[in-house]
């Protein structure tokens, strides 16, 4: 397939892997975090860890927007979806995210009108087609999906569509990374920066990582060669003692970001003072809500959501696993109170979360595999 297969070339991969190996210090252990869930997916799907030296460990970060949603926000979405006048719309992977009493798929089975959409604009179309119903869009995602929600709201306002509202759960990428960097027991050496988020925000927001925390960061694309090349760029920085923000994904990511998208976001959203992350607790200024100019479209106001907080069990140690302090089976609730069927923490929600992968495949989720002959 053109423009995809070129970035999956095994010969080039071997050459890049050999270069990484050649600058790896055999006496040192490197922990590199990929912040974004999309990168985690690529790493699993193409088996990238098998191409790296034993000394280089990839740590999966907090960047899966559905995994980090706290149970309270899922419960509140379900509360809105259960109202008889509401058509509730959301992205496909939101359907299985567990709240304290089930997920959207189960609520749909109980009779709620829940529809999967591929874009918030589809939700707006449903609102136009059903003027006698209330259509609510469950907005999730980092700065990657926030502009499309902003654009949809701008359009709804312009067209005066009154039966449409948004339950906003957009989060921002920098605050959780800063929270990780601030923790005294952090054991990470470098970061792979998120590619799609950066098409919107650019590379500048990551400069604090190298300037204030001495951690190199390379913004990377989503094909396996993109990731391998960005790991090489990070290893070169570590090898040469440099500490910078670099852009591996320059074919897509402008250094300054997408100014038009940022402008739309600035008009439609404002920062929440704080927001809860599953397994990580409350993080200041880490999420977006609708601005006063768009208050009429805010489902939180329209349905007076109570802002219930469902406490993470004290024993949940997602934060420690994320920081690289604990391995999944060392968490107190791993495999007992927290399982892929009934996840408590973010890392158990997606099958690619570190804990879910360990639950399903045991040590093989960490170990390198001897390939053998065909």
């Amino acid at each position, binding site marked *: *397939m053109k423009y*995809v297969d070129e970035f*999956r070339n*095994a010969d080039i*991969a*071997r050459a890049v892997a050999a270069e990484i190996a050649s600058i790896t210090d055999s006496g040192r252990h490197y922990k590199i975090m990929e912040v*974004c*869930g*999309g990168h985690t*997916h690529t790493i*699993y*799907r*193409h*088996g*990238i*860890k*098998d*191409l790296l030296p034993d000394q280089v460990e990839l740590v999966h970060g907090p*960047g*899966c*927007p*559905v995994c980090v949603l706290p149970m309270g926000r899922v419960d509140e979405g379900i509360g809105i979806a259960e109202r008889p006048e509401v058509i509730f719309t959301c*992205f*496909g*992977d*939101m*359907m*299985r995210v567990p709240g304290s009493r089930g997920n959207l*798929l*189960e609520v*749909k*089975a*109980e009779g709620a009108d829940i529809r*999967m959409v*591929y874009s918030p604009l589809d939700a707006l179309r449903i609102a136009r087609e059903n003027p006698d119903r209330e259509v609510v869009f469950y907005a*999730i*995602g*980092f700065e*990657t*999906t926030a502009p499309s929600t902003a654009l949809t709201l701008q359009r709804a306002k312009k067209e005066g569509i009154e039966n449409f509202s948004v339950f906003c759960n957009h989060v921002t990428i920098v605050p959780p990374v800063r929270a990780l960097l601030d923790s005294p027991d952090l054991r990470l050496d470098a970061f792979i920066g998120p590619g*799609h988020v950066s098409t919107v925000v650019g590379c500048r927001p990551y400069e604090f990582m190298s300037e204030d925390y001495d951690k190199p960061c390379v913004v990377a694309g989503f094909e*396996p060669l993109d990731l391998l090349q960005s790991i090489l760029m990070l290893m070169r920085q570590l090898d040469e003692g440099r500490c910078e923000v670099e852009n591996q994904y320059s074919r897509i990511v402008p250094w300054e970001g997408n100014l038009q998208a940022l402008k739309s976001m600035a008009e439609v959203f404002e920062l929440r003072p704080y927001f809860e992350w599953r397994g990580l607790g409350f993080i200041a200024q880490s999420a977006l809500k609708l601005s006063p100019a768009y208050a009429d479209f805010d489902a939180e106001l329209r349905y007076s959501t109570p802002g219930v907080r469902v406490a993470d069990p004290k024993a949940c140690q997602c934060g420690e696993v994320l920081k690289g302090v604990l*391995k999944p*089976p*060392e968490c107190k609730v*791993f*495999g007992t109170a927290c399982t*892929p069927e009934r996840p408590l923490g973010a890392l158990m929600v997606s*099958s690619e979360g570190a804990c879910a*992968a360990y*639950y*399903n*495949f*045991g*040590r*093989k*989720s960490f170990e390198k*595999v001897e*390939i053998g002959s*065909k």
Partner: protein
Amino acid sequence: MSEQREQRVLDALEENRRRPPKFTAPRIDMSHGAGGKATHKLIEGLLLPTLSNPALAPLTDAALIPFGDNNLALTTDSYVVRPLVFPGGSIGELAVNGTVNDLAVSGATPVGLSAALIIEEGLETEVLAHEVEAMAAAAGHAGVSIVTGDTKVVERGKGDGLYVVTTGAGVADPELSLSSASVRPGDKILCSGTLGDHGAAILIARGDLELEAEVLSDTRSLIPLVQALKETAGSGLRFMRDPTRGGVGTVLNELARDSGFGVVLWEERLPIRDVVHGACEILGIDPLYVANEGKLLAVVAPEVADGALEALRRVEGGEEAEIIGEVREEPARMVLMHTGFGGTRMIDMLVGDPLPRIC
């Protein structure tokens, strides 16, 4: 953390996994129909314990019931596809081929089919007639007749136009011993052609995605392919399945679990059409979990594998057959794929529906 403690956690998980699953969901939701883990739980946790009997227990595509000197093979399947007519086929053709294929991969020759039609009030007669003709044509092609049936009409809004339920009876070949218990390390895994064509054709035909691509469903009878394998592989033919709902990924996980061995795949050997690959790439779903309706997955002894592959490729519908992997001692009860990129990836059973990802 000590190695021993980690081992204790792993052992506890393993013990959990071996316990018969309990079905705890208060209601049935769509994930219970997707063919993956939730469907397994429904069948093994709710149906199997209550209906328990020796013919049902192996949960194969068709049950084998001793009858005189032979084994009678019996299978049933219901078809609820939307739209009724899609590129490459329609519900009537699918309903006959699907049941014929469940018999064929069980090593049985079909002797008769039944068909039940559940028709929604308001369905155009022309549409129904087209489907009955499609059923007759598919049955004729497979050399079997629809010998009994039933019709019911339900009120408007209570069905998607037409649901079809088919049951097939056949006589099992006494020479064959097809089962996950016959599989041995070193055996090769054959796939008769490209993956995911049917599921991709349906997704695109529904029109929700606004994708325009020419993908045809692969619905067809597997009898000629099975025949070719039987002739060339003989007693080296160990196991056959029809990777429909849940796809090749799910079937191979069942094989790994039931045989106790590992399954190893090579990604670059997986036959996948460019257009299916592209559609799956855009939607963020994996062709390994997408449904097929005319593909045969077979495990054969290594010494007959090359001959079996050649035989498949000579049959219509098997031209793109490949040896996609093999059975190994390790990783026991798991499926591992060597990726085209040079790494490895564990292939899990499908969890819920293959839903598109946002990230």
